[in-house]
């Protein structure tokens, strides 16, 4: 049936409320769990200042309200204050998602004056050794300094620490570091296995005992701290028995614009085969969001297979994550195999089983997110 993958009027999607601007894939850090594409090195031609401003105007006109400046490291873009000012003027709530590298008192002041609403600083660990190892940089002391500067500018402090097998046992020290920095929010987000994290999965996936302990410790601190610091603890998908409602549904609220202008329903979707994602250099945001076949591919329920198609939970989790389904089963339209109801759930339990041993069993050494490594990973 012609046009059968287009949503009907009843399921016409709402606006892209959440716009994530991945300004660049350049980053001074080399984190082993980075969610950027493995072949980021092939993306060299970044959108210009004027391109971005146009994207912001068009997205805002559709009803976008949240704008995240991300990357790579967004601070490497010299035009960041100009972009923040444009976004702020349009009425976006502006969020900077940064490693902290490149921020100093003058630049924070400049961003604040441009109307930046919020800054989230990431740490890799509470110790200099592990922070600097996981990011393959000497950045720990700088991050501590930057976190204090952010707070001094009157911003709430939101710290994000990505957890993995290599740092999760430091959870108590990580929480204490956040308390010492007077953080308002602490995101303890376990690595999810996309991009570089997928490549390094056997090194990064914690054991069940590690996760259980980390959750216990987090809950104990919650009780002790009262409402003083809000903590969010996110378990790895691999340890859940139902999939997450990834992106709140494909093409439902989230619009990701990659550094080269590729419009994506999430940070990872670039790798999905068989879909031609539109580029904002060639198409307006309205066309990208409402008309492009790629954004319509997994909207609604028509694309679903069993067990999702007849599952009462399909309206809650939308069958989970298309990228995870593709990576683990070879078919993006399959149920996210994280779900115990998926016939492919064994692919997840197999990986989880391997993670229960004290010794890491990995096919290859840890690969750091570096340009040279990325260049080697570009498919030919």
């Amino acid at each position: 049936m012609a046009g059968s993958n287009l949503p009907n009027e009843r399921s016409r999607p709402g606006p892209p409320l959440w716009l994530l601007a991945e300004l660049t894939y350049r980053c001074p850090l080399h984190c082993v769990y980075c969610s950027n594409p493995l072949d980021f090195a092939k993306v060299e031609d970044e959108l210009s200042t004027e391109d971005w401003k146009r994207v912001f105007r068009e997205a805002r006109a559709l009803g976008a309200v949240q704008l995240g400046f991300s990357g790579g490291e967004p601070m490497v873009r010299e035009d960041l204050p100009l972009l923040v000012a444009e976004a702020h003027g349009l009425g976006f709530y502006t969020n900077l998602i940064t490693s902290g590298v490149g921020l100093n008192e003058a630049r924070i002041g400049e961003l604040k004056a441009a109307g930046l609403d919020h800054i989230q600083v990431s740490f890799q660990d509470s110790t200099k050794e592990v922070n600097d190892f996981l990011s393959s940089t000497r950045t720990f002391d700088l991050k501590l300094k930057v976190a204090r500067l952010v707070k001094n500018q009157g911003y709430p402090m939101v710290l994000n620490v990505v957890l993995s097998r290599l740092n999760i046992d430091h959870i108590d020290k990580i929480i204490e570091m956040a308390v010492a920095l007077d953080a308002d929010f602490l995101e303890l987000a376990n690595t999810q296995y996309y991009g570089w994290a997928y490549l390094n999965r056997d090194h990064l996936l914690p054991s069940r005992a590690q996760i259980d302990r980390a959750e216990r410790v987090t809950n104990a601190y919650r009780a002790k701290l009262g409402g003083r610091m809000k903590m969010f603890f996110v378990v790895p998908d691999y340890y859940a028995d139902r999939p997450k409602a990834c992106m709140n549904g494909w093409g439902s609220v989230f619009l990701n614009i990659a550094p080269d202008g590729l419009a994506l329903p999430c940070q990872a979707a670039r790798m999905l085969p068989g879909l031609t994602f539109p580029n904002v250099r060639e198409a307006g945001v309205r066309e990208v969001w409402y008309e492009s076949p790629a954004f319509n591919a997994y909207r609604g329920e028509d694309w679903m297979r069993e067990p999702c198609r007849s599952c009462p939970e399909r309206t809650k989790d939308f069958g989970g994550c298309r990228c995870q389904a593709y990576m683990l089963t070879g078919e993006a339209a399959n149920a996210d195999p994280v779900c115990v109801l998926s016939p492919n759930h064994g692919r997840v339990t197999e990986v989880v089983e391997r993670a229960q041993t004290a010794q890491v069993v990995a096919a290859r050494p840890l690969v750091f997110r570096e340009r040279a490594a990325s260049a080697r990973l570009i498919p030919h």
Partner: protein
Amino acid sequence: MAEIMLQAQPLLRSLYRLQWEEAQQAWVLLYPEGMVRLNGPAAEILKRCNGTTKVAVLVDDLERAFSATGLQDDVHEFLNEAASRGWIEFAE
């Protein structure tokens, strides 16, 4: 409790921004990486949470603006809820 509330001066915390969204035809409350869509009364109350207006004055103002009476309990209930969600704080 009611007495303290009447003298309190609620203030929308700086983390939050209240704005009209044309596309949604609604007032929304924006905060880091999130948004709450407000109903009409909630928006009218939050618009008046400027840190200087006392709750008693706020109630009078709303009753006048909407030609209503007896809004005090509803306003108190909403302000308590907003405070517990961290949207507002009280200056004394």
